[in-house]
């Protein structure tokens, strides 16, 4: 018996990784396990994973969670659980093995890198776990960090998968792994082609690394998988090309300014270097002269001059080399990516259109109140932005008292209308009606109100942003695929904008009030002589415009930060919308909002890193646009146009 054991031990020592049970593997590699590091431990973990021992999963899990220990006396491994007296021991097969004092046991504390490797190894066990959630989590972890080792266990786990969704996921993941890691190139190409022009981000994530390239300088054409040849001066700068040659040891380094000055300072003798006096060294040409003299004297190493560098560049070729060696795979991958690219571009255009539309509806919502006060009445209301802010704060205050978000929004909308309607009417009665003949003065007076209101709001609500939370059913986004998605809040705002458009049209065209408003707009004196009270109509119109600003405030507050400066961000845009669209016409406001919103998104798309630049160009465009259509897109004709 002893002899047999000894033989076994010898066998284990000779080929430690071919051990059968988890316990044996660990014992055989005890030293490695105790000082586990990311670089060295891989064979042990792989062996545990491949052992087929049913306890391996539990052992690995315990190891990762600091639940594995070594008894110092005999070097045996145990699963350990800390308790009052030290550790409760369980042997690796799962049977209780008594109790040990803390000092008798060395607890294994794998570092983060090792824990990560253990987690990867555990994946193959969890892929077949009876718990559906655990299987899904395992799939996700493979997808996040694809590794060649995961391919085999994944394939093994597909056939027995009971859950249909998970099975499709597994199959997709298997194909993704195949196209990257399968040794057979035909299988990889088949996997690539099987996707067609799939839009999934995971597919592009898998294909892109296949097409990763490195730049290479070489005198003769290399045997590697060449993506394309690079011409210095066209595809890469000459400096880059030369640096490439230097790093490949094909040419000596170019002389840098720093190296030159160090060398010159080192060779300073009797107030001159290489025959050039110290005081003359204040130009680059003189320094070059001095260095060349030193080179000739042999005191400094040779460094490439510009001529030499040019000649060297001529003698070499530069290539983009695929890291993937198989040309068939790279061809298939680039073809697949190209067809995906076309589809993605189309989808992005659709997404851009949706974005533009949603921005347009926000601008429309912010501008519609202004279209009434400015467009219909000709009154510039600089405090319009503050009315928007007041609406947003009304929503915030309502949410303080009504905890149910859906109910609070439903209360806030009419309440915001009421608050800003009252504010608008008060402002019209007290100030604006005295200034109807003096539009510039109205602008300044309402600006006075604007700064006062803004400061009052700041004093009351503080400078920090207040939350205005949208109901849960507005969270999330409507996702059509990985490219096109739109958040529900934006859809809601779009619907709200449509509602207001309909409401406004109905009010102006179908009601008595609308008729009177139009009459007063066109000719107040005549309207008055027909029995319409222009004062009352002006008051109501102004109140209506302000009230709509309040509702817009609630809507904007749902996605923007509610601060006292909320309205200021929208006021200039709103004026632009009305002016560009054409004053005095709701369709003009709509057209203006669509144009500004769409254009802004387009400029942002062309220059995505810089939204500030987008706004700048937008305003410049508007200034130029006014040149060609001074009265806006939809200009009123005839008497209603005034002057």
């Amino acid at each position, binding site marked *: 018996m002893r002899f047999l054991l000894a033989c076994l031990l010898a066998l284990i020592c000779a080929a430690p990784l071919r051990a059968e049970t988890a316990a044996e593997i660990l014992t055989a590699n005890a030293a490695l396990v105790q000082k586990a590091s990311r670089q060295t431990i891989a064979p042990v973990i792989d062996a545990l994973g491949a052992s087929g021992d049913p306890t391996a999963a539990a052992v690995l899990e315990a190891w990762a969670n600091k639940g594995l220990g070594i008894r110092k006396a005999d070097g045996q491994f145990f699963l350990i659980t800390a308790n009052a007296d030290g550790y409760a021991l369980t042997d690796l097969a799962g049977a209780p093995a008594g109790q040990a004092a803390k000092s008798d046991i060395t607890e294994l504390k794998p570092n983060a890198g090792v824990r990560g490797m253990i987690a990867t190894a555990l994946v193959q066990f969890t892929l077949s776990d009876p718990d559906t959630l655990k299987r899904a989590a395992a799939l996700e972890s493979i997808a996040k960090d694809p590794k060649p080792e995961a391919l085999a266990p994944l394939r093994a786990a597909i056939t027995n998968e009971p859950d249909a969704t998970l099975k499709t996921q597994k199959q997709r993941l298997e194909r993704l792994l195949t196209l990257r890691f399968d040794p057979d190139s035909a299988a990889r190409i088949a996997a690539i082609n099987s996707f067609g022009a799939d839009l999934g981000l995971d597919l592009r994530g898998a294909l892109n690394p296949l097409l990763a390239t490195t730049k290479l300088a070489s005198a003769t054409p290399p045997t590697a998988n060449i993506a394309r040849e690079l011409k210095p001066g066209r595809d890469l700068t000459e400096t880059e090309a030369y640096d490439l040659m230097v790093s490949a040891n094909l040419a000596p380094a170019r002389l840098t300014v720093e190296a030159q000055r160090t060398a010159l300072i080192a060779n300073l003798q009797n107030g001159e270097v290489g025959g050039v006096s110290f005081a003359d060294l204040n130009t680059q040409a003189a*320094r070059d002269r001095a260095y060349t003299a030193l080179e000739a004297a042999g005191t400094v190493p040779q460094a490439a001059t510009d001529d030499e560098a040019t000649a060297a560049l001529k003698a070499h070729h530069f290539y983009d080399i695929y890291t993937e060696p198989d040309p068939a795979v790279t061809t298939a991958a680039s073809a697949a990516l190209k067809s995906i690219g076309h589809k993605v571009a189309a989808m992005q255009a659709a997404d851009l259109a949706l974005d533009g539309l949603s921005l347009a509806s926000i601008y429309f919502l912010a501008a519609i109140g202004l279209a009434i006060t400015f467009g219909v009445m000709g009154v510039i209301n600089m405090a319009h932005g503050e009315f928007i802010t007041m609406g947003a704060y009304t929503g915030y205050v309502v949410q303080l008292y009504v905890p149910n978000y859906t109910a609070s929004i439903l209360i806030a909308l009419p309440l915001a209308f009421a608050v800003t309607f009252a504010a608008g009417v008060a402002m019209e009665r007290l100030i604006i009606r*005295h200034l109807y*003949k003096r539009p510039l003065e109205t602008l300044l007076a309402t600006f*006075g109100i604007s*700064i006062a209101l803004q400061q009052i709001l700041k004093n009351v609500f503080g400078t920090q942003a207040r939350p205005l939370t949208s109901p849960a059913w507005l969270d999330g986004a409507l996702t059509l695929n990985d490219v096109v998605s739109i958040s529900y809040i934006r859809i809601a705002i779009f619907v709200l904008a449509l509602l207001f458009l309909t409401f406004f049209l109905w009010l102006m065209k179908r009601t008595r009030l609308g008729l009177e408003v139009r009459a007063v707009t066109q000719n107040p004196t005549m309207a008055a002589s027909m029995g319409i009270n222009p004062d009352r109509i002006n008051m109501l119109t102004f109140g209506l415009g302000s009230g709509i600003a309040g509702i817009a405030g609630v809507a904007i507050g749902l996605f923007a930060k509610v601060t006292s400066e909320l309205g200021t961000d929208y006021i*200039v845009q709103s004026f632009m919308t009305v002016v560009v669209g054409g004053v005095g016409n709701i369709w003009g406001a709509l057209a203006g909002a669509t144009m500004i919103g769409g254009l802004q998104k387009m400029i942002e798309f062309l220059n995505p890193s810089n939204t500030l630049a987008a706004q700048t160009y937008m305003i410049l465009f508007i200034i130029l646009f006014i040149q060609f259509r001074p009265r806006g897109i939809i200009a009123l004709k005839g008497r209603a146009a005034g002057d």
Partner: protein
Amino acid sequence: MTRSFILRTPSLLIFLICLALFTIAVTLAAHYGLISTSFVKTLGKTLCLCLAALAMDLIWGYAGILSLGHMAFFALGGYMIGMWLMYARTEEIVITSLANSGLPATPEEIQQGIASQIFGVVGASDLPAIWSFAHSLPLQLALVVALPGLLALIFGWLAFRSRVTGVYLSILTQAMTLALALYLFQNDSGLRGNNGLSGLQNLPGLDAVSQDSISLWFFWASAAALALAYLTLSWIVSGKFGSVIRAIRDDEARVRFLGYSVEGYKLFVFTLTAVIVALAGALYYPQAGIINPAELAPIASIYLAVWVAIGGRGRLYGAVIGAAVVSLLSSWFTGGRAPSIPLGFATINWVDWWQVLLGAAFVCVTLFAPKGIGGLFDHFTGLHTPDRKGAPLGPDQGSLQEKEAIE
């Protein structure tokens, strides 16, 4: 009409004497240490703001064009002079530090050192093309005038050519300053993004001179510029040119039918005021020490209009009084030196409530005293307006109302 120019405009002499007395008083007070250096700077800055308000009064009070973008020219002037100040100052520092490095510095090294010193904060190390003239004071001084002047010329030509008037022009000018501010806020605009230019109070080559003297020099320069501008503008508005632009304010169409080139006059006034404002900015920012794109925010230009309105538009001294009173009051209130008013249930802390007061005062001035503070002088001199039954002087949006007209 044979009386001399001085006699025809008595306010000019009074104003110049007042300004001279004020300058002497401040100089003496600063000399004997009665007022601090920072207060001298505040006064100097206020004089620059008065200068800007003077230009605003010419374009709004006299020509009836409410521009809400003139502070953009103010800031541009500041940026132009700031570029030279920063460049020259950094050059001194770089040369000093390179002198210890073993070899005499080459021009390239100096250039590189300056660029990385100035643009390190925005992660760039090359000097953008717009800094090409920054090494030379005369060129950069020419740019103080040329760049805002050119911008105003192009913008004004585009706007007046297509007959953009009234509130539309106001909104368009506001959009212009907003666009410029947004552009300058970018880090790659070449003017250090939202860091702006700083350290402008240190004049290159004048390390030995204390800030006390420098602040007085700038105070004198500001006072001289204000006096000169006042003199020029009074001369302009008292002549035929003044009559034409007032006529444009009150009834633009009639002036056009009389054969005057309304657009030409407007464009001249717009560009001239832009240049004056830019000069004011070039004097202001070396005293302020720092300039950043926030100075171009549309609100700044609106404040300029507020000063002129409170002081009394359509008269030059009104603009100066308005700018001086409001900006000094503003710095007094927001500086936390104004005593708080306890109301029992709440305390009115003026740092928080000053803006409310300003807004309310502004509304009241617009409604009840369109002549502003300047109207008080009419009251004391017994000058009364003819009774025109409340009719405006002209049909245009910028025209003065009956209550405001005195001339």
